[in-house]
């Protein structure tokens, strides 16, 4: 149990950020992470700790997908509503990052780049975003990412290449401006 606690402590912030990037909502991201933690603890805590990471991200990925499905249904039911929450909270993450940076003079360039990159990652399509975060940030292998996302390895490679290409394009746009 102590081992699981340490594992969750180690992973919780990154999981939250991943969920926040996918949902653009702090509250929903917290709910998703909590659900994923509970499911891992109650269903898979007996598994080998080396399996926890891919299992946790698989649960998280499924929860995020469920959230998107619910949103799609809600949008269809309440079609007259504008998509306020998503667009309002879209920049929540980047504002938050900007607020907590220190020494603005020396870090202005990196802050701008970081904020811009986060915004670019946030604007990636769902699959590309998840693929990029799992492969690049979490360091999962192509095979592990494919298992977590329930797609084949070639699709992982394609999503990852497209994500990289879009991020590079965004970065070049920033450099030009």
């Amino acid at each position, binding site marked *: 149990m102590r081992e699981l606690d340490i594992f969750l402590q180690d992973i919780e912030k990154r999981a939250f*950020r991943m969920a926040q990037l996918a949902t653009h909502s702090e509250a929903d991201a*917290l709910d998703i992470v*909590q659900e994923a*933690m509970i499911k891992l603890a109650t269903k898979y805590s007996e598994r080998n700790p080396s399996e926890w990471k891919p299992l946790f991200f698989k649960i998280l990925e499924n929860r995020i997908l469920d959230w998107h499905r619910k949103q799609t249904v809600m949008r269809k039911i309440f079609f007259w509503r504008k998509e306020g929450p998503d667009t309002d909270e879209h920049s929540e993450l980047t504002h*938050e990052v900007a607020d907590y940076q220190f020494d603005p003079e020396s870090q202005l360039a990196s802050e701008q*780049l*970081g904020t811009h990159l986060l915004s670019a990652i946030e604007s990636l399509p769902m699959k590309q975003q998840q693929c990029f975060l799992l492969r690049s940030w979490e360091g999962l292998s192509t095979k592990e990412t494919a298992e977590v996302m329930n797609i084949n390895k070639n699709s992982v490679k394609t999503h990852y290449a497209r994500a990289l290409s879009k*991020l590079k394009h965004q970065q070049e746009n920033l450099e030009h401006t």
Partner: protein
Amino acid sequence: MMEQGKPITEKSAKHIEKQSNAALNDSVESLSPSVETSLQQARRIAIDSLENQHQSVQRRLFNLGSLFNIKVLSAGLACCLVVFFTLPFITNQPNPHSATFLSSNTALSEFILLSDFDDTELEVIEDIEFAYWLSQELDQGSELHNG
């Protein structure tokens, strides 16, 4: 890796990965205290739910253990003994082999009487019956001789 006609080299891919990871790590480091508190609570809830699950399993095992007290065990043992001693009496019936033979013998006689056999067929059946009778007589004779 082509987007709008611009290829991405491995070097630039690594560069983007590095910058993105740095930006993401910074964003994680700078999470607001309220979010950190919420995450700690979420973790606590997950660990508590696991503890509750373990406790409920232990409780179930304990309840199962309480079934095995002296009264229940002695009652079970008494039932087993009753079954053990009454079972041979229940199953002790006449030899089914002889009953089958008798019933099959009478059934054969009825079958012969009621069927329309020609003379040749009847002779064959009579021969078989005679051979069977003779073998029985010989068996009985040998038993008397031995006895």
